[in-house]
């Protein structure tokens, strides 16, 4: 167990020397995004179909704060994260009144509102998005212009975000969430106000998705409409199911796979979606629990 985490940490530290650092940073951002989503789908049993709103909105807030208001990069990231969490509180408190497909549709509706807001707001650059966001200096000292420095900065943020996710699912709160996922009426009859637990889970998930979006804005020095678009909400479902929902690292593995596929297949133009769609169908049919879920099940049955 410990050695497994150490190996992953070593992999994360060595990554920018093995692959293009921007690619690695993109994977980290989306891995955190998928982990945030996993907190809801895998550990609370809620399917949000509007998570791109948190990723994208946080990117815009961070971009605006750093570029236009000249805030230090850390403060900009904090502002993006906080904005996403606040948005999560509003969306969550309203959507939580329904469950199942209605919940998914309400979150999708909210995300569409955010999309059109961002598209038409005066400050967000419309179709072009926010361009030319400076990366700034970490702690006011180390310039993040270089990709290696930026990578370790992003990696540290990823570790912090992942730690919050990991602790949440292994906390007393996380255990109540699992009970709610397993049988919500029973949890209610044991005295838990199910809705309040779900809202808090939603806010934490939105906040972490926001952190991922803020990181992404710094990495790519831009905030784009594609991160608010419902395609993005769909792709995070794909990453999570591919890697294995309800497993701690499954969605991160899923993010790695999807980003890799998109990268290597980018030469094929719009065929990328067809191919990722095909891979997705094949994986879901062959590994119902996702890649990591399937490996876990094999290992535990062999014991």
């Amino acid at each position: 167990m410990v050695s497994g985490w150490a190996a992953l940490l070593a992999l994360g530290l060595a990554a920018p020397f093995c692959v293009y650092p921007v690619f690695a940073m993109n994977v980290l951002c989306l891995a955190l995004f998928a982990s945030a989503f996993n907190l809801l789908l895998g550990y609370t049993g809620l399917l949000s179909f509007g998570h791109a709103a948190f990723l994208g909105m946080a990117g815009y807030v961070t971009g605006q704060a750093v570029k236009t208001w000249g805030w230090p990069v850390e403060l900009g990231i904090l502002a993006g994260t906080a904005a996403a969490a606040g948005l999560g509180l509003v969306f969550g408190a309203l959507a939580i009144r329904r469950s199942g497909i209605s919940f998914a549709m309400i979150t999708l509706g909210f995300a569409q509102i955010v999309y059109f807001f961002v598209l038409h707001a005066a400050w967000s650059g419309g179709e072009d998005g926010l361009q030319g966001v400076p990366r700034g200096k970490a702690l006011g000292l180390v310039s993040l212009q270089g990709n290696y420095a930026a990578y370790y900065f992003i990696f540290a943020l990823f570790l912090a975000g992942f730690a919050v996710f990991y602790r949440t699912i292994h906390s007393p709160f996380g255990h109540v969430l699992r009970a709610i996922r397993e049988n919500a009426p029973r949890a209610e009859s044991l005295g838990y106000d199910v809705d309040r637990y779900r809202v808090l889970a939603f806010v934490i998930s939105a906040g972490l998705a926001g952190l991922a979006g803020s990181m992404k804005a710094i990495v790519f020095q831009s905030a784009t409409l594609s991160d608010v678009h419902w395609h993005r909400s769909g792709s995070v479902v794909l990453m999570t199911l591919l890697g294995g929902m309800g497993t701690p690292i499954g969605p991160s593995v899923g993010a790695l796979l999807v980003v890799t596929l998109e990268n290597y297949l980018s030469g094929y133009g719009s065929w990328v979606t067809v191919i990722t769609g095909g891979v997705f169908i094949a994986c879901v049919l062959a590994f119902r629990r996702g890649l990591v879920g399937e490996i876990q099940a094999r290992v535990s049955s062999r014991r």
Partner: protein
Amino acid sequence: MDSIDLSVRRGSIHALIGPNGAGKTTVFNLLTRFLPATSGAITYNGEDVTKARPAELARRGMVRSFQISAVFPNLTVLENVRVALQRRLGTSFHFWRSQRSLEVLHERAREVLASVGLEGFETTLTAELSYGRKRTLELATTLALEPELMLLDEPTQGMGHEDVGRVVALIRKVSAGRTVLIVEHNLSVVADLCQMITVLARGRVLAEGPYSEVSRDPAVLEAYIGVGT
């Protein structure tokens, strides 16, 4: 559901019986506020709880079970009981605290499991338990809350003869010092266990009294057992 007037005496085991569709589970859902009552009042310990939320009622000691076994299948047996115990720690919203803080509950959870005869299953995944044991676990989880009033919805439904005997003995054992309202189809269980019986039919109370009286009531015989007089 139409003008049901039901009072359950503290410390008794009270049965709710009636043919299918009589509204037994609906009464449970109304009492525990899983369904809103359109009119009338529900009092519990002398207080009006007609508008209380289900979780709030549970915290005040009124805990229900469900017709279909209500366990948490992908948690271990110990974790199932621990979830019920956990609320009392007051840390259930603490997402920053380690799960090790829950280990103080293990001793009590083991005691509860032992009291229903589930010792040795602590680390078993609940989904792998037999049906009878799942229902026993459900009862253990309910007991862990130390409820004043337990509402059991068909606790012996779908069980074999031996399991029924075990569950009846268990209910009798745990009913000491508590009030139990029970929905049950198995009349021998009802006759054996309950001091008071309310017979429902088509959303109304048909008869009420001890088994010896109710079982001779002509209206009951006709509606429930289907014997015309």
